[in-house]
């Protein structure tokens, strides 16, 4: 099987490549990147003139909801949403029902994703059994079954001794530990930032400190255990400063930021808009500015979606009862391209944060780049195409987004996984 992608702007930050080239894929791998590659014997030609050819995007933080919450999303709809968003690999979090805290569930996810999934699915196992923060989950057995890291995401491991053990133990299996940093005693029920908006609305707010305390703790524990720590959905200036300083000391810590924390402030919840109810909460303008600066300076290693689909009946309720989270796979690229328009980032930076950055964190060799010999995971998109975010056309089963109607640029035309075109101008081929 040979695919030739002709005349696109090939942007491969890992290889420092940015120019008009052809990309030839043979038997699932990138074979050649060059000019005027011959089309002989090619099974499929893709004309990418005027478009960008990038390494397939990798999402470190997705909730695919299967097993257990298939009414919100399942492995098929979630991976279709991923493909439509230009993602070729997604890491799915463990807070399913039952929780992915044992090899049986991990195997189920891996097998089912292989059967019905459109893109690659790599599960993240739970740190603790049942996400209860009490005893370690079957981490080693899950590692054998295919997880690449562990996280109690959705919950914070509040017991520092258990978190220490998790880091030590995970290190033995060369697994990443992903921290959902939230001091639950301090954050209370808040899914809104503590500040004037929360006060005005009469909602319990969560202060930046609730996140920063755990970021500081987990960095200290990573230093102690020499394990690999990744901070999920980092949202405050203070957290970023902690990560920056830790990296300087040589601690193995990385972090991700979501598009919504880069685009919105806590003002977005005005009118009790539950679509903007997320954890960690949308923060102040000052935090948003700091996160954007952190992207520019390279302190932020990756952009991750925290794709969290919910049914409308879970959102159209009283604010404090509303499920937290928003759908993100299909809006990530256009929102990130806004950062290019806002002159925060250059296009290659956006691509790096969506591909090479996450690949490195997840430890994926031969992904996140178009270097010959790598997996032929490729996203072809038109960065200039004007449009509007339209939730009614999401491939995800859920519609919860505060970005509905936003004017954006960027349309994904093709998503290629392992040399197969899985998303082709709106159509899926699994």
């Amino acid at each position, binding site marked *: 099987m040979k695919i030739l992608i002709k005349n696109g702007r090939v942007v491969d930050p890992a290889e420092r490549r940015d120019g008009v080239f052809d990309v030839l894929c043979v038997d699932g791998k990138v074979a050649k990147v060059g000019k005027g590659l011959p089309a002989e014997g090619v099974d499929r030609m893709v004309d990418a003139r005027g478009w960008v050819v990038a390494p397939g995007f990798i999402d470190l933080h997705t909730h695919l909801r299967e097993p257990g919450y298939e009414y919100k999303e399942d492995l098929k709809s979630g991976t279709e949403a991923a493909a439509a968003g230009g993602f070729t690999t997604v890491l799915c979090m463990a807070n399913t029902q039952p929780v992915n805290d044992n090899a049986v569930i991990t195997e189920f996810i891996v097998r089912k994703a292989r059967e019905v999934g459109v893109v690659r699915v790599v599960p993240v196992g739970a740190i603790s059994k049942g996400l209860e923060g009490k005893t370690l989950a079957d981490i080693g057995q899950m590692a054998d079954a295919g997880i690449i890291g562990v996280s109690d995401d959705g919950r914070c491991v509040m017991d520092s001794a258990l978190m220490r053990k998790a880091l030590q133990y995970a290190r033995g299996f060369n697994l990443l530990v992903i921290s959902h940093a939230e001091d639950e005693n301090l954050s209370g029920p808040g899914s809104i930032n503590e500040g004037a908006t929360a006060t005005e*609305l009469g909602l319990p707010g969560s202060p930046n400190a609730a996140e920063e305390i755990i970021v500081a703790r987990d960095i200290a524990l990573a230093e102690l255990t020499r394990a690999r720590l990744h901070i999920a959905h980092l949202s405050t200036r203070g957290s970023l400063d902690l990560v920056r300083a830790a990296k300087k000391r040589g601690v193995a810590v990385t972090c991700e930021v979501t598009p919504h924390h880069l685009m919105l402030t806590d003002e977005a919840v005005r009118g009790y808009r539950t679509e903007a109810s997320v954890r960690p909460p949308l923060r102040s303008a000052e935090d948003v500015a700091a996160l954007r600066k952190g992207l520019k300076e390279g302190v932020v290693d990756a952009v991750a979606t925290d794709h969290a689909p919910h049914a409308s009946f879970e959102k159209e309720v009283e604010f404090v009862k509303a499920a937290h989270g928003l759908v993100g796979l299909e809006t990530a690229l256009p929102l990130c391209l806004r950062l290019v328009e806002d002159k925060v980032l250059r296009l290659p930076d956006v691509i790096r944060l969506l591909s090479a950055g996450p690949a490195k964190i997840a430890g994926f060799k031969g992904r996140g780049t178009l270097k010959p010999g790598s997996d032929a995971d490729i996203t072809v998109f038109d960065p200039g195409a004007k449009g509007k975010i339209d939730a009614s056309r999401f491939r995800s089963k859920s519609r919860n987004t505060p970005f509905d109607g936003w004017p954006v640029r960027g349309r994904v035309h093709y998503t290629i996984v392992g040399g197969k075109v899985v998303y082709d101008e709106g159509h899926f081929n699994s």
Partner: protein
Amino acid sequence: MPPKNKDLLGIKDLKREQIVEVLETASRMKARLASSPQKLDDLKGKAVINLFFEPSTRTRASFELAARRLSADLLTMTPQASSLTKGESLQDMVENLEAMGPRLLIVRHGSSGAPGLIARHTKASVINAGDGSHEHPTQALLDVFTVCETLKITDYGDLKGLNVLIVGDLAYSRVARSNLFAFRKLGARVTCVGPATLLPPGLESFGARVGTDFDRELPGADVVMLLRIQKERQEKLNFPSLAEYTRFYGLTKERHARMKPEALIMHPGPINRGVEIDPDVADGRTGGGARTVILDQVHHGIPVRMAVLSLWGARE
């Protein structure tokens, strides 16, 4: 003139002129009530549903009476939170009520923002009768009305020079927010004092002065508004004990004696006697000093709510 906003969800959304209009209407209502014992017919033939998810005998009764005085067809519902947990959402419930074609829905709910959520699913005008820690607009309107009536202020739009001191639980009190917005919009100076744990961030951005020293602010106040301490929610978490609260933020006889003689003492009720306020001060049994107008507040609830219901009920 009927208000432009479909709903009355909070004072924050009202313009100064709208507040003045409600107060002027309330003043006329009060005069009409005094001159004739007959019912008014502002809401004749219109259905009003009193929807109270949270128990509140006083506010509920006040709205009921106001609606009856205006000849509304009144229905009061007090759904238990439990009936809604059996899979019925607020949305479902409101869509059912909608079939009855109510003109006004008066909503009291324990969750901030719930009346706004209801408002999105009904054509009726929703009047917020207190939601969570958000707002209690009619309470603020009747508080302002009471201040104006007692101090013989006839230009409601100009409260410049009036020093209002709001004391206690600024964090959870919906009455505090609504009053802060109302008095600020009318030009009064508002100071919020309470234990630092009950002073949420951002009060300054709404135009309030903020402090923790009740004794320092007390002598300059023209109105001292004491907020109810929700004992079960607060004690231990936000301050060490009720005794300590009273020592620093209670309106004791001794503090009462240091108030301006023409100042007013207000409390939205129900009072925790001996906590926020000394029982004798509350009942006006202490000689001299500031006046307690707590019962006037209750009394003025009727004309003010009549004004609100008739104004919002007149919208088409």
